[in-house]
Each structure stands twice: as C-alpha cells, then as structure tokens.
C-alpha cells in the first residue's frame, strides 16, 4: 500500500496567549512554538501502521516555508520513507483551495493507493484541503476517520458522527481519508530518531516544478480572502451565585424567568 500523507506545520495555540498581528489578517506567531498539526500527526502514524502491516511506502508532503522541515523530519522519524516540501514565495496567502491545487499538481503524478490528511488543521480549522484535493484528483474521500481496515482493493472505514455514533463505510482505492484524532496512539519520536531520519530523502519543489502560474496560487488563486481577524470581545461576564441550595435554585429560576426563558 503506497500512502501519501499531507501535513501542515502549525503554531501551537492551546496554551499560548494569542495576539493579533498589526495587519489584522493573522495572529502574531513570533513567540509561538510550531509543530506538526495534531490531526496530521495521527494521519502519519496511521500511514506508518498501514505500511508496517501491508508493506509499501509512505510519502509526507507539505506546503510551507523552510521552517516546516522540522515537521517533515518528524514524519520521516515516525516512519515515512520520503518527504516533499513545496515552497515558493508565490504560495503565500493561499487558501485551502489554492493549497489543494498545489498538492494536486504534485500528487497526480505520484503512485498512490491512499492519501491521508488530518481532518482539519489546528490553526485555521478549515477542514477543506483534503476534500478539495480528492475532488481535484477525482477520487472518493471519507472525513472524520476513526478506523481504517484494508480489504482487497478497498478500505473499510469508521467515521465519527455526532453523539458518539460511528458509521462504517467502504471505499474503493485510491481514496483520500481525512483522519480524526484518537484513531491511534502516535508513538514517541526521540531526538535520536529525528537525527537518524536526516539521512532520508527530502525534496524541495517550487512554483515551476508543480507547473502552476503565480495567478493560480497565493491570494490571486484563492477563493477566500481574510477580511479581518480579531479576538471575540467578552460581552457578558459570568455570574457566580452564592448561598444555600434553595437560595441558589430560587435565584436561577428568577433569572431564567426575568429573561423570558421559562
């Protein structure tokens, strides 16, 4: 099984204090720590698990700056065989559609049975690249994937639905699966492992190599532009009720009644 995994190098924002950049179009990233997108980490682990079980190869691909090398090296240390970084000044400002176009141009000529992406990225949370990429390639896709089983010529896939439900679907290969977190337990990547992975192949390609024009990528090649980015204002403050149980219950009822909710 030849697997391609699309990954993204993203800032970690869960613990960080987020500030908006002067341009009002993005967040300030200077003091943030970057790493592989959490969903993509699960996707790479799943690809490596499939390779370990079924043979074949794993190729990790990213669109990003030179900084993304650390994410690709992590993929190689995790067990990917090759990595490709797509870097060009013209790619900057690309939306999900433009990113999918760049990926499509490279992936269409590569041999693959399966493409894995994370279900979404931790920074913009768009969850679109995988789906658009599958459309451009003309292959089926399955999102929110929690389990993958390979059966002769196709895959049996568990999708996560709301309310704790899962549905099982079958898809013919080649297929794109957008992986949800929790599908596996990504193994620890040691520093020694990353150092050893330095020996593996890492290709860097640009606009000309992918065969796109400047108009087709970046902001001009995108369908979505960011108008303004802002931190949602705190409009209402929480009120902590004090007193005995009866007292608190009475206050809650009064508040709900006053607001016309009951």
């Amino acid at each position: 099984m030849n697997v391609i995994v699309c990954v993204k190098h993203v800032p970690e924002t869960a613990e960080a204090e987020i500030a908006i950049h002067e341009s009002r179009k993005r967040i300030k990233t200077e003091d943030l720590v970057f790493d592989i997108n959490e969903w993509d980490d699960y996707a790479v682990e799943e690809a490596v698990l499939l390779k370990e079980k079924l043979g074949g190869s794993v190729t990790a691909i990213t669109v990003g700056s030179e900084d993304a090398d650390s994410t690709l090296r992590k993929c190689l240390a995790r067990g990917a065989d090759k990595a490709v970084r797509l870097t060009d000044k013209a790619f900057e400002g690309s939306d999900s559609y433009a990113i999918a176009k760049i990926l499509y141009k490279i992936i269409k000529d590569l041999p693959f049975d399966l493409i894995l992406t994370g279900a979404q990225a931790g920074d913009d949370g768009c969850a679109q690249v995988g789906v658009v990429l599958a459309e451009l390639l003309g292959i089926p896709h399955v999102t929110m994937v929690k389990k993958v089983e390979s059966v002769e010529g196709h895959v049996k896939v568990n999708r996560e639905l709301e309310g704790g439900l899962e549905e099982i679907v079958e898809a013919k290969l080649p297929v794109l699966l957008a992986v949800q977190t929790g599908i596996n337990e990504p193994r620890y990547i040691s520093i020694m492992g990353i150092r050893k992975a330095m020996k593996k192949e890492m290709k860097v390609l640009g606009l000309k190599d992918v065969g796109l024009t400047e108009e087709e990528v970046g902001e001009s090649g995108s369908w979505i532009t960011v108008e303004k980015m802002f931190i949602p204002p705190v409009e209402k403050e929480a009120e902590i009720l004090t007193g005995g149980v009866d007292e608190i219950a009475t206050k809650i009822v009064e508040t709900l009644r006053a607001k016309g909710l009951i």
Partner: protein
Amino acid sequence: MEELGAIKKLNFNVCMQCGKCTGSCPVFPKSKLNPRRLMLETAYLISPLTMHPPLNIYEKSEIWDCTTCSTCSYRCPREVEPMDVIIGLRGLLLEQGRVPSTLGDALEGVYKYGNPWGISRSKRSDWAQDLKVKYVSEGEKAELLYFVGCAAAYDSRAQEVARALVKNLNTLGIDFSILGNKETCCGNEVYSLGEKGLFEILVEKNLSLLDQYGINRILTTSPHCFNAFKNKYGKDLAVQHYTQYFADLIDKGKLKFPQRVEKVVTYQDPCFLGKHNDIYDEPRKIIESIPGIKLVELNLSRGRSVCCEGGGGRMWYDIPGERGRLAETRVKEAIDVGADILAVACPFCLLTFDDAVKTTGNEDKIQVMDIMELVAEALLSSNEQVI
C-alpha cells in the same frame, strides 16, 4: 542494536544475582519491576547466548515503573548499577517509540517549552513578579544564580518554595539573580527516562546560557537539578542545593533565627540529595538550628529512606492498576513518629506528599513543608512572610 552500546559499558556482568536490588526496590512489591531478573535478562540480551523463551525487551513495560531512587545501585555489593541498566533499557524502548503516552507528552513538553508540563515559556517567571529579584537575562548581574527548576517555576504549590527561598535570600542580604523566562529544564528526568538525545540538547542549551551570562555559582531548589548539574553535565560546575548553601550560612554564623517554631518535625531524605549525592546532614542541620523545632527521625531515614515516587518520570506516570503510592505509607509513618510537620527538600517530594496527606485524609494531623518554608517562618516575622 547500537543503542545497546551504552548498556554494554555498564558493569552488570559481574552481577552475582544476590537479589539485594530487588529486595530493596521500593516499587517491586507493587510492580512487575524486578531489578535482579532484569540484570540477568540484560546479560543475555547483549551476549551471544539466548534465553528460552527469548527475551522481548520491548514487552517489559514495567521498566517505566522505576523511580530512579538509586536504592538498588546504592546497595549493590558489586557496583553493578542496576538503575543505570534500567535507564539504558528505557533508552532502547524509547528509540522504538514505546513510551507511555504521558511520559512522551512530558518529554515533548521539555523539547518544545523547556518544561515537562508543557506550559508556555512566557509564564516561567510569573511566580517572581511581585518579588525583589534580579534577572541576569536582563543584564542584572549577580554572583550567585538561583536556578529555580520547572516544578518550582510552574507548580502553584512548589512556587511557594521558590518564593520562600527568594525572601530568605533577600532577608540575609544575599546578592543573586535568576534566568527568568530564559531558564530551561535541567534535564535530570529526561536523562532518567533514557532520552539521551534530548538530554544532550538541554546540556548544550544550559551550558551556553551559563557561559553567555558569565555565571560561576548555581543554587538549586530541586535536588534533581542539582544532581543533573553536578553529575551529568560532564563539567565541574559550582552548584549547590539550597540545603548545602543554608547549612554553610549557619556554620559561618551568618544565619540566625529570630522566631521560634514550636513543632515536631520529621524529614524525608530526597533520593537525589541522599542516596544519589550523600547529602544527609545539611538538611538536618538547618532543621535543628531552628529554635523550638524538635526533629524526630522516620523509622527508615538517610540511606534507608523510601522514595516518594516522584522521580524517574513518575511525576507523569502511574503504574497501571497500582493501589496506594509509597508517599501515602510515608505520610502514615510520619504521623506514627508523632510529627506535626513532614519536612521535605525537594519539590517532587513536596507535591507527592501533599497529595498523599489529602488522599489519606490526614490534613488535620500533619502538614508538608519545604525546609525553605520552615526557614522563612523562623527568619521572618509573620508580617514579612505575607509580603
């Protein structure tokens, strides 16, 4: 397996299987961890001989149960150093990515944020904001560097120890500075978990920080940081644990206590101060110098002390299905010897014992205090302590 190289250098082939290591291992009674058996199995692992059934080291998940308290190495009559063999085996598992996820997260936290809790670097010196502290990172030079350590920098309970230490130094008029948000993990637990590559990175970072700011003397809150700097950095660094530093001040007549503390106090020897570094007298000297305090010893103390289970990565890992932590037994022992206060000199002991006092429901019987907090109580008026 090239990772076996480090283990091969160890002296375990002189092991005579006497079993002192297993007999003295504090987690053996509740874990599959059996140092004696591991020594034998490791001997086979690196020799051309095979075992039946063949040993699969990767299935030995109990290797993560070790607290690296060093009792096995301390008592081994042949200087086999079973603890170092365990750390070497951890390295083997780790290179295969076979690490319990909470330990993997702690290591990633150190790599990305410089602390095992994975909290933002920008919050590292928040604890010191309202205190009088020099920041060497902002050009405020001082002769002595206070290396706070991750636990005292980030954990709200352990921060109280750092705050007490700073107040004590200020009261005594001692010139010192801290690294502020530039400080990064010392790597002691990283080393204990067998993550050699990451440990090397931390050594390089810390040595270059010390060099950059021209630091000659280091004082640590944690015996773990002290141990790393003293024994694992491959350099002759002038580092002291605060118990050594304050015991020196007492010897020189520079530390006298104006306040009395009328309490019965017992003391837990931290493994990384005691068994790892033979520092037993200095903490006791400080406690006994405080007027009013009566020091009573636990039944097992000094070299026979029992680990709190906070070392070797165990702050971030519970033995699967374990019932009762060693700290709980120690708290009960402390109550049995009639102590009002269980004194500690290590942030990990502080946190594990604080938890154990709560889980055993003994909040009204015993209090866990760091020696620096006792010193603050005896040194400062109640007014100054609040500030």
